[in-house]
């Protein structure tokens, strides 16, 4: 799909966003990429993110939260964001991107959890918002999460769990953070399928916050980062 963006009948920004949302919901990755490329050709990749992709992803997150949400739609949204990120960083002048990188943060699945899909989609969403991610992969022990956070200066550890059993394993990470006196300084973000169907589980396993979908993850990480800074100030 391509849209003529420069003549007198060019669609409004709102219409282009709506077209993008519609294409992603139909799992039309090629169509979504064509539309974004067309926009980027006239406005540049930075504007693609600011004016088109980010608002569209937020819109998708709002519109497909709940029963109409399918994993396939979320997957396509993440793929489109990933495609656009890849293209943007390969553009001449990409280093001119004036938005400072956020983070770093550490992501991973807890011990015994091998369901990578959700974590990867969240990582893509975070990268699209400028976060620097250290993705530790599946089956990560608590000590490794903390070791990486300390080594990289990460203020947030994001843990994705698919099942109740593996979500319970997050408690060990919470205990380890507290035992090392890092509560507040290192914020624990938790998420994954099981958290969506079990209200209160995030608090129960010791999480500092959770998000209802991958689309809401960047806002959560913004909040937790600020909470970490505040905690450090209050201890200074």
């Amino acid at each position: 799909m391509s849209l003529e963006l420069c003549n007198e009948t060019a669609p409004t920004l709102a219409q282009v966003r709506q077209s993008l949302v519609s294409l992603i919901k139909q799992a039309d990755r090629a169509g979504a990429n064509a539309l974004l490329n067309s926009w980027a050709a006239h406005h540049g990749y930075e504007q693609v993110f600011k004016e088109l992709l980010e608002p569209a992803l937020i819109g998708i997150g709002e519109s497909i939260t709940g029963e109409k949400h399918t994993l396939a739609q979320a997957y396509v949204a993440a793929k489109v964001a990933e495609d656009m990120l890849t293209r943007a960083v390969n553009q001449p002048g990409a280093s001119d991107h004036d938005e400072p990188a956020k983070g770093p943060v550490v992501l991973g699945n807890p011990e015994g959890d091998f369901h990578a899909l959700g974590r990867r989609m969240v990582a893509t969403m975070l990268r699209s918002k400028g976060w620097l991610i250290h993705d530790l992969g599946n089956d990560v022990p608590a000590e490794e999460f903390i070791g990486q956070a300390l080594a990289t200066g990460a203020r947030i550890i994001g843990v994705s769990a698919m099942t109740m059993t593996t979500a319970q394993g997050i408690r060990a990470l919470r205990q380890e953070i507290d035992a090392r006196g890092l509560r507040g300084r290192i914020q624990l973000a938790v998420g994954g399928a099981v958290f969506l169907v079990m209200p209160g589980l995030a608090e129960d396993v010791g999480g500092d916050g959770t998000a209802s979908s991958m689309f809401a993850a960047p806002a959560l990480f913004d909040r937790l980062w600020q909470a970490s800074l505040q905690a450090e100030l209050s201890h200074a």
Partner: protein
Amino acid sequence: MHSAMRFANLLRDQPTDRRLFTLVLSLYGARLTACPLDQHYTDPLAYARGQSAVRETFQPDVLFAPVAVALIGAAFGGRLRYLTSNAPTLAQPAIESAGEWQDLNIPDPERQPHLVFVREALRRMVAEHRDQVPVAALFLTPVDIPMLVMGMDAWMDTVLFDRPAAQRIARSLIPFFVTMTNGYLDDGAAYVILPCAFASPGIVPRTIAEQFSRPIMAEALAQLRGPVALHHLDPPLLPHLDLLADLPAVGGFSLASADSLSQARTLLGRQPILLGGPEVRLLRQGTSGEVEATCRAVLEDRRDDPRFILCNSGADLWLDTPPENIHAVRRAVESWASER
């Protein structure tokens, strides 16, 4: 009246002394026999012993052969991790992309150890219980097996962005699926449960369920020698139920607690058996009073629907589900019957 008679009467539209009920207690058998889970999922005798304990303790009307889909992925060469509080999980799929599929060997159902374990556990259970309690087995359709062979990411990618390859792969699995499922039926399984992932409204949009999954499922199911029940997996199934309604060999639907059983019955007509009831999370975390009340509400909702089995929605019950909550399900069925 024992469970096998109830089940037979249900199928023949004959009266039963009470509503049938069952719970997926595949994992729970290990708790009752204090069996380490690596043994529970490798030793057919140990597994069957666990299901005997389930029958003795809770008296469900249907027992279950091993519910451990990761074993299917391991049979293709994936790396299995045995857990201490849940069924085994796949630590590493056999392959990472559709491009590797052509070099993959389809496992031999008669020789591959993980497949033989499930088959042998089923045979032992049938030999011990069939005269009195039906035994159900679980497998996956050809559109869902690949997610265990190449991982969810790679299979999702293939289905979404390389449909010809996805169709080729799923179709190549039809003979394996037919051999395995007919094998379970030949071994005495009363029916085979088939969870629906790539036909689920929570996983794929309707167009994919309709254009990709349904035709392949229809082709595969047409070759079966006995009944299957389609399972909702976790999300509600109702939005796609019309697509699955007239598939061959489908005798029942196991629905989510969020599905409307009334709407499902209206959509499906009177013939298919419906299974539904409290979700596994309620059974794990609710009180026995809440569980019993939920079961009674479901039974009341199905008052005029004889072709119904009270069964937990969701997957296998967690190991730490309080036994009194499981007893509460049977108590609800018995007390509801006695009040009629």
